[in-house]
C-alpha cells in the first residue's frame, strides 16, 4: 500500500465517523494546486543537469500553505500530494493557522556539491517564487534540506519581493531563525508521550524507551526522556543498534555520536539494527523512516505504546494489528507536530520582527502540544476510536468547519 493510499484510508475512516458525504470528502482530499517545474543548472564540471521540482498546495482555508521541501530522487507529484495533505491535517490538529503544502526536487544531494545545491535551490525558487510568500505558502526544511537551503530560499525570494524572512521557516538562528527549532520535533514527541501517561496517572520517570533513529529528532527526544527520568534501553541509527536494560547514558551517547558519526563503539551491548524494534519496553519510538512496522513484524513488537516520531513508520495493517491487541499508537500527525509548531513560532517572530527567548518558545510549544493532545485524547475516548482516527477527526473537522464557514462558491 502506498503512502497515498494509507493516508486516504485514515482520512476515509475519520470522514466516516464525522459522517461527511462523499462529495465533501472528495473536496477535502483534492489539492488546491499542483505545480511541476523543470529545474536545470550547470554542474561544477560544466555539464547541464535537469531535475523536476514540485510544489503541491493542498488546502489553505485555515491559513497559508505550509510544509517542507525535500531533495530526494524519489520525490514526485504523488509523494508531494500525500505529504501536503498530511500537513493540512497536522496543522489543524495543532491548531496552527496554516494549511498543507509539500514539495521538493528529485535530486540526490549526496551527488551535488554545496555550490551545485545552492544554484539548484535558487533556480527552483526562480520558478516558484510567484506561488510562495509569507501569506501564501511557506516552505520549510525536510529530507536532505536544512537551515542553509532555507537561507538560500529566503535570499532568492528577496530578490523578487524584497526582504521577507517569513517566506520560509527553519532558517539559521542567526538569520531570522527561531531558538528551539532544532529540538522542537523531539520536544513535541516527549510532550505527547508524557501527556499520554499523565492521562493514565503515570509519568515518564522509570519507563523503558526504545528509540529507533538517532538523528536530530531521535537524539533530542532520547535526551528529553533521559532528563525526565526515563530509561532509554535501546537506540539504533543507520549504522547499528545498542541496548542497555539499565538505561543508556544518553548525553554521553550523543557526544559519542557527534564525535564518531555513529552509535557503534559506545560502551553498551550491540545488536542487529532491526532487532531494536523487538526489545521489550514501555514505549517504542520509531524516529527514522516510514514503513518500519508492517503486518510482517507487528506481531513481534513487545512495546506497550508506539509513538510515531517519524512520518508513517507504522503501516495501516500493522496499526490495526497493534491496536487489536491493545498496543496504542500515538500518530505522527499529533506526536511529531512540534516541528511545524515551532516553524509557526518562527514565522510569528519574523512578522513581529521580535525574537522570543528559547524559554518562551518551549513554553508556547508545551501549551499548544498539551491542548492538541488533550483534544485528541478526549475525542478518542468520547467516540471510542483509536488515537490516529481521533487525530484525523480533529484535523478534518477543523478544516471542514473553516471551509463551511468561509463558504464554497
Amino acid at each position: 500500500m502506498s503512502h497515498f493510499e494509507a493516508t486516504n484510508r485514515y482520512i476515509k475512516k475519520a470522514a466516516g465517523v464525522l459522517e461527511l458525504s462523499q462529495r465533501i470528502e472528495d473536496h477535502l482530499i483534492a489539492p488546491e494546486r499542483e505545480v511541476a517545474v523543470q529545474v536545470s543548472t550547470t554542474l561544477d564540471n560544466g555539464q547541464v543537469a535537469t531535475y523536476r521540482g514540485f510544489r503541491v498546495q493542498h488546502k489553505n482555508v485555515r491559513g497559508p500553505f505550509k510544509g517542507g521541501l525535500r531533495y530526494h530522487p524519489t520525490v514526485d507529484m504523488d509523494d508531494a500530494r500525500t505529504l501536503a495533505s498530511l500537513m493540512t491535517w497536522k496543522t489543524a490538529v495543532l491548531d496552527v493557522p496554516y494549511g498543507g503544502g509539500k514539495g521538493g526536487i528529485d535530486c540526490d544531494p549526496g551527488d551535488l556539491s554545496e555550490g551545485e545545491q545552492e544554484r539548484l535551490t535558487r533556480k527552483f525558487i526562480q520558478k516558484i517564487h510567484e506561488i510562495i510568500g509569507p501569506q501564501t505558502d511557506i516552505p520549510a526544511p525536510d529530507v536532505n534540506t536544512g537551515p542553509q537551503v532555507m537561507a538560500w530560499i529566503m535570499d532568492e525570494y528577496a530578490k523578487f519581493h524584497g526582504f521577507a524572512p517569513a517566506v520560509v521557516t527553519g532558517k539559521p538562528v542567526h538569520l531570522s531563525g527561531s531558538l528551539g527549532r532544532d529540538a522542537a520535533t523531539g520536544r513535541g514527541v516527549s510532550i505527547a508521550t508524557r501527556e499520554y501517561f499523565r492521562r493514565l496517572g503515570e509519568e515518564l520517570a522509570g519507563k523503558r524507551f526504545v528509540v529507533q533513529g538517532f538523528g536530530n529528532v531521535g537524539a533530542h527526544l532520547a535526551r528529553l526522556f533521559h532528563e525526565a527520568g526515563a530509561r532509554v534501553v535501546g537506540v539504533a541509527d543507520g549504522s547499528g543498534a545498542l541496548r542497555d536494560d539499565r538505561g543508556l547514558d544518553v548525553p554521553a551517547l550523543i557526544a559519542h555520536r557527534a564525535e564518531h558519526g555513529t552509535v557503534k563503539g559506545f560502551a553498551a551491548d550491540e545488536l542487529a539494527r532491526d532487532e531494536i524494534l523487538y526489545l521489550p519496553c514501555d514505549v517504542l519510538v520509531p524516529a527514522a523512516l516510514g514503513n518500519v512496522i508492517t503486518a510482517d513484524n507487528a506481531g513481534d513488537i513487545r512495546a506497550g505504546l508506539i509513538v510515531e516520531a517519524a512520518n508513517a513508520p507504522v503501516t495501516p495493517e500493522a496499526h490495526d494489528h497493534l491496536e487489536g491487541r491493545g498496543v496504542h499508537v500515538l500518530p505522527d500527525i499529533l506526536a511529531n507536530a512540534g516541528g511545524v509548531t515551532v516553524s509557526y513560532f518562527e514565522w510569528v517572530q519574523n512578522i513581529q520582527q521580535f525574537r522570543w527567548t528559547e524559554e518562551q518558545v518551549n513554553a508556547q510549544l508545551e501549551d499548544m502540544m498539551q491542548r492538541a493532545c488533550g483534544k485528541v485524547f478526549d475525542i478518542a475516548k468520547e467516540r471510542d476510536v483509536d488515537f490516529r482516527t481521533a487525530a484525523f477527526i480533529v484535523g478534518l473537522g477543523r478544516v471542514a468547519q473553516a471551509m463551511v464557514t468561509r463558504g464554497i462558491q
Partner: protein
Amino acid sequence: MPTGKTLSAEGLGELTLFAALTDAHRRELADLCSAMPLGEGEPVVREGEASRDLFLLTEGSVRVSTGSGAQAQELAVIQPEAVIGELSLILGEPRSATVSAIGPASLVRVDGEGLRARQAAGDPAALQLAWQILAKLAARQAAMNRELLSLSQPTTTAGDEVSRLRDKLFAEWSF
C-alpha cells in the same frame, strides 16, 4: 402460528381494508379472519416460509428484516393499519422477509388459502377485498414511483449540503 378467535363483522368494519365493504360482505368474510395477539419478539411470518395468509396490524409495531445473525438487516418498522403478506398471497411465493413484533402487538390474520379459493370461485365479497388489497398495493407503488423520481434528480443544491454540514459540525462536535 398463534391464532385467536374469529372476528365479528362489526370488528372488521373498523379496519380500513374492510371499511369500504358492505356489511353483508364483511359477514361473509368474517370466518376467514381471526385475531392474533403477539408478545414481544414473536414472529408474524418468517423469511422463506411457505404461507399465503394476510395480516393487518391493528396495534403495536412490527419489524421487517431479512437474513439472520451478523447478516441480519432491518428493512422497515411498520405501524398500525399496515397490510403484511400481500406479496405471498398474490404471487404464491415464500415469505421475502421476517416480520416480528417489537413489543406487544395485535394483528388480524386473514386465511390466505380460503380467500384465494373464494376469489377463484368468483365470490363477490372475496373479490371486493381483493380490490382493496390492490388499492393498497397501488398506493405503495405510487409512493415508490415518487421516491424513485426524487432519487433520480439532484435533491439538494451545494448550498444545502454545506449548510447541513455546518449545522452538524458545530452542533455535534467540539474540536
